[in-house]
Every structure is written in structure tokens, then in C-alpha cells.
């Protein structure tokens, strides 16, 4: 087993009763890599995510982190869900602490990380607010902060910017890139926005329709910051679009 891979996914397969959702998906992720996953609507991206987060157990295959079977209790998995997932009864600061308190980190370590995250995201003024007092995008940034603050072995993001406008989206995408570089986290980012995938990823994984398999892996070797109208960018974006439309 080569040590340079942080995460190894081997032969992941899932049936719900007779419904075959995921078919023999294998891939590896290097430590500190930013991987995007795209696919057509209803291709089982959610199932895929739920298998990686261990909310569902696979019918066949396994997920290994550092060569061990992944276990949320042992490993450090963080997920940014699509829906708002800040605890409405906790303040911004307490939301940021939530995951680390579950992991029972030392108090001063939590304090340090929370402080750092608040500074990184520029959330000082919101510390004692509750999520419902914030805008959608700020609430989502807190969730992303909560996930990065965990310094996870693997960070999964499920279309965190689903319905936001492009301006906001670019801003938040740049913020994620910044956090990712700062923290050196391994990220799997699921989206159906191909532009977003190409903008963010070092590697794009294209899934097929149900039962989902890996159709192709596309390496994106464009220096950052990337420009969406750059011909190289448009070429890759077109290619990925073709691969999905092909069905």
C-alpha cells in the first residue's frame, strides 16, 4: 500500500434492495489534494457522499484512510452538507466548537482553533449571533469554518454553494481555496456545476448515470488563480460537459 495516498476507495458498491446505485467505484486521493466529483442529476451523488461519510454502509468495497478502514469515531471526517446545517440553538462561536467538542479536544486547543478560524473568515462581529440572524451565505461560511477547524483527514463538501449567485460564489470559492491552502486539508467537493468543479479542482472525477461508475478522471493543470474565460479552462470545461452529456 503506497503511503502517498491519504484515502483509498476500493470497489465501492451499494444496493438498496434491488436498486443498484453505485457500481464498483475505486479511486485514491493524495494527501492535501482537492478533488471534485461531478455527474448528471440523479446519478447517486448523494449515496456516494453518504457512503464516504459512513452514514450508509457499503454493500461491497471499503474506504480506507491512512490504510485503515475509515471510522468516524477514529478518523476525522468533516462534511459540509448542502442544506443549512448550523445548529440553530448555538451561537456562531459555539457552532464552530461543536465538532471539536465531540472529538473531546483540549479546551485551549479548541479556543486557539476557533479564534484562528474566526480571524481567517473575518467573522469577529458575528461571534455571538445565532445562525437565523445571519444571511444564508454567512451561515454556510460558518459551516465551512466548522469543517476546516476540525483539521480533518478528509473533508467532504456537498454542493455547499448550491443556489448562490455567481459573484458570491466566486468569492466563496476563493475563500475555500484559501482555507484549503492554509490548512492543507484533503478535500472532496461534490457539485453539478462544471465550471465550479474546473475552477476548484486539481482533479475532476466524472460519474456516470445510475448505477454510477467512474467515467473519467480529468486532471486540471491550470495555475491559480484561474480565469473562467481562459481558453484552456473553457476547453476542459467543454470536455467535462461533453462527458456528462454523452448519455
Amino acid at each position, binding site marked *: 500500500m503506497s503511503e502517498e495516498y491519504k484515502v483509498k476507495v476500493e470497489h465501492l458498491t451499494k*444496493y438498496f434492495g*434491488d436498486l*443498484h446505485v453505485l457500481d464498483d467505484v475505486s479511486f485514491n486521493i493524495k494527501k492535501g489534494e482537492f478533488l471534485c466529483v461531478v455527474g448528471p442529476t440523479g446519478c447517486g451523488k448523494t449515496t456516494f457522499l453518504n457512503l464516504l461519510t459512513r452514514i450508509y*454502509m*457499503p*454493500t*461491497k468495497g471499503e474506504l480506507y484512510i491512512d490504510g485503515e478502514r475509515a471510522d468516524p469515531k477514529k478518523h476525522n471526517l468533516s462534511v459540509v452538507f448542502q442544506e443549512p446545517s448550523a445548529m440553530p440553538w448555538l451561537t456562531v462561536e459555539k457552532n464552530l466548537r461543536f465538532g471539536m467538542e465531540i472529538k473531546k479536544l483540549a479546551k485551549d486547543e479548541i479556543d486557539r482553533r476557533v479564534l484562528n478560524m474566526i480571524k481567517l473568515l473575518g467573522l469577529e462581529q458575528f461571534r455571538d449571533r445565532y445562525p437565523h440572524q445571519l444571511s444564508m451565505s454567512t451561515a454556510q461560511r460558518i459551516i465551512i469554518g466548522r469543517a476546516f477547524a476540525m483539521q480533518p483527514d478528509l473533508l467532504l463538501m456537498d454542493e455547499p454553494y448550491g443556489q448562490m449567485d455567481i459573484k458570491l460564489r466566486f468569492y466563496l470559492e476563493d475563500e475555500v481555496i484559501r482555507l484549503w491552502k492554509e490548512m492543507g486539508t484533503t478535500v472532496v467537493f461534490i457539485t453539478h456545476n462544471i465550471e465550479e468543479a474546473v475552477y476548484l479542482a486539481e482533479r475532476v472525477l466524472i460519474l456516470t448515470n445510475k448505477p454510477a461508475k467512474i467515467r473519467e478522471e480529468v486532471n486540471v493543470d491550470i495555475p491559480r488563480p484561474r480565469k473562467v474565460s481562459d481558453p484552456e479552462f473553457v476547453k476542459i470545461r467543454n470536455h467535462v460537459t461533453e462527458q456528462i452529456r454523452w448519455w
Partner: protein
Amino acid sequence: MSKKHGLNLSKAEIMEHRLEILYRILPLISVLLLVGLWMIASRDFNADVGSGFPTPAAVWDRTVRLFTRPVKKMNLIMHALVSLRRIGLALAFDWTFGIIFGIIIGWFPKPRAFFTPMFDAFRAVPPLAWIPLITLWFGIGEFPKILIVIFGSLASIVVNVKAGLSAVDKMYLNVGTVFNATPMQTLIKIAIPSSLDAIFAGVRTSTSAAWMVVLAAEMLGADSGVGFLISRGMDSIDMPLVLTGMIAIGIVGAILAILTQFVERLICPWTRKSK
């Protein structure tokens, strides 16, 4: 597609499957346990003296005897029907007057301001507390009993209807504005239908409230109805009769709840949300 269960499930999935089966068996176990407990509790039951907790068999015998030798010339079903008639008449009044009154104080601000304190005061009094006053006023005939039930169940429907109409979602009203709805149209075509859910919640709670009140009223002074059966059983230390009464009450109450739910689905098909 693959054949059924031809796949090799992973260990975790097999565990899940086993748990599912366990969840299906557990209810049976608990019901059996309940029956077992009853048996143990009624070990020292003595039918002649009436001491101790009656056995299931004794309760069954008493129920049968209620049909062969009716109390006050009425068998169990007739007693239940008498109670039902009382709540039926009371609810008929509740649902007409209560809904109209609820709509008025929910929708129009001035009547709301005028009636709210009076209504809140009326509502604050527990339904059964009216019984002495009403019997003082009207004696112990059939009418005061129905009146007691009305007093006890009117508040719950008015409260629900009022809540529904005073909180009509603004977005529905906006549709009316864009289509030039008249105030009357807004009330009848938008406000009332949009609060049908709340109105039905009121129908449900008023039904169960009425059922509770009628029992209490019958226990306090009546010579018919299921509540009377219980108090009769208590007075004559006839515990099996008490239990027969309670079981009958439970069954009728459950039927009433199911019935209102069924009617609601019939009238409001859109609430039948697909899961």
C-alpha cells in the same frame, strides 16, 4: 437487474436487516408482557368480595353480562350511544357556532379586540369546573349535560380557528391582491381555505375534549352513558364493570379519533402529503 437477495450483503447491512426484524417483533412482546402483567396483578382477585384487581376473564364475563342483564335497561352499546348522542349534539353546536365565531374574531381586528379578554377568561376555566354552576342553573336533565359538553369543548375549536385565520400566510393574500380580489373573496377563497388545517385541528381536539367532558359529567350525576357505568361500578364495588367501562371508553375514543382523521382526509385531500 439482479435477482432478489442474490447479492452478498456486507456485515453492516446484515446487522441492519436483523435490527429491522427485531423492531417488528418487539411490539408483540410488549403487548404480551402487558397481558401477563394484568394476569399477575389480578392474582388475588376475588369475584365475590370484589377485592383486588379483576382478571381479564372476569372483565369479559361482566361485559357479556351487560348484554344479557342490562343496567337500567340498557346494554353497553346503548349506553355508549347515549354518550355519543350527547357529544354529537354538543359538537354540532360547537362546529357551527364555534367556527363562525372563530372566523369573526380571527379575521376582523375590532371584534377580536372586543371579545378576546372575555373569551380568554372563559377559556381559562377548566371545562369541568362549569358542572356545578350549570347544574345549579339548569338541574340535571339532558340539556344541562349537553351544555356542559359545549362549555368544555367550545374553547378548543374557537382557539384553533382563530389562530388559523389570524395567521394566514401573506403570500396567499398577495396572490389575491394581484388578481384584484374583493375583501369578501379574500376571506372566502383565500383565508378560510388556507386555515382549513387549523380548523380541522380544532375539530379533532374539540372531539376528544367533548368525549372527556361527557364522561366526567356522567360520572358526576347521570343514569345513563358509559361514564355512568363506571361510577355505578365504583359505587357497587363492581370492579369488572369499571374496567368494562374504561375499555369501552378507550375503544370509542379511538374510533372517534380515527373517524375525524378520515373525514379530514376526505375533505382536505391536499393534506395527504406524500412522504
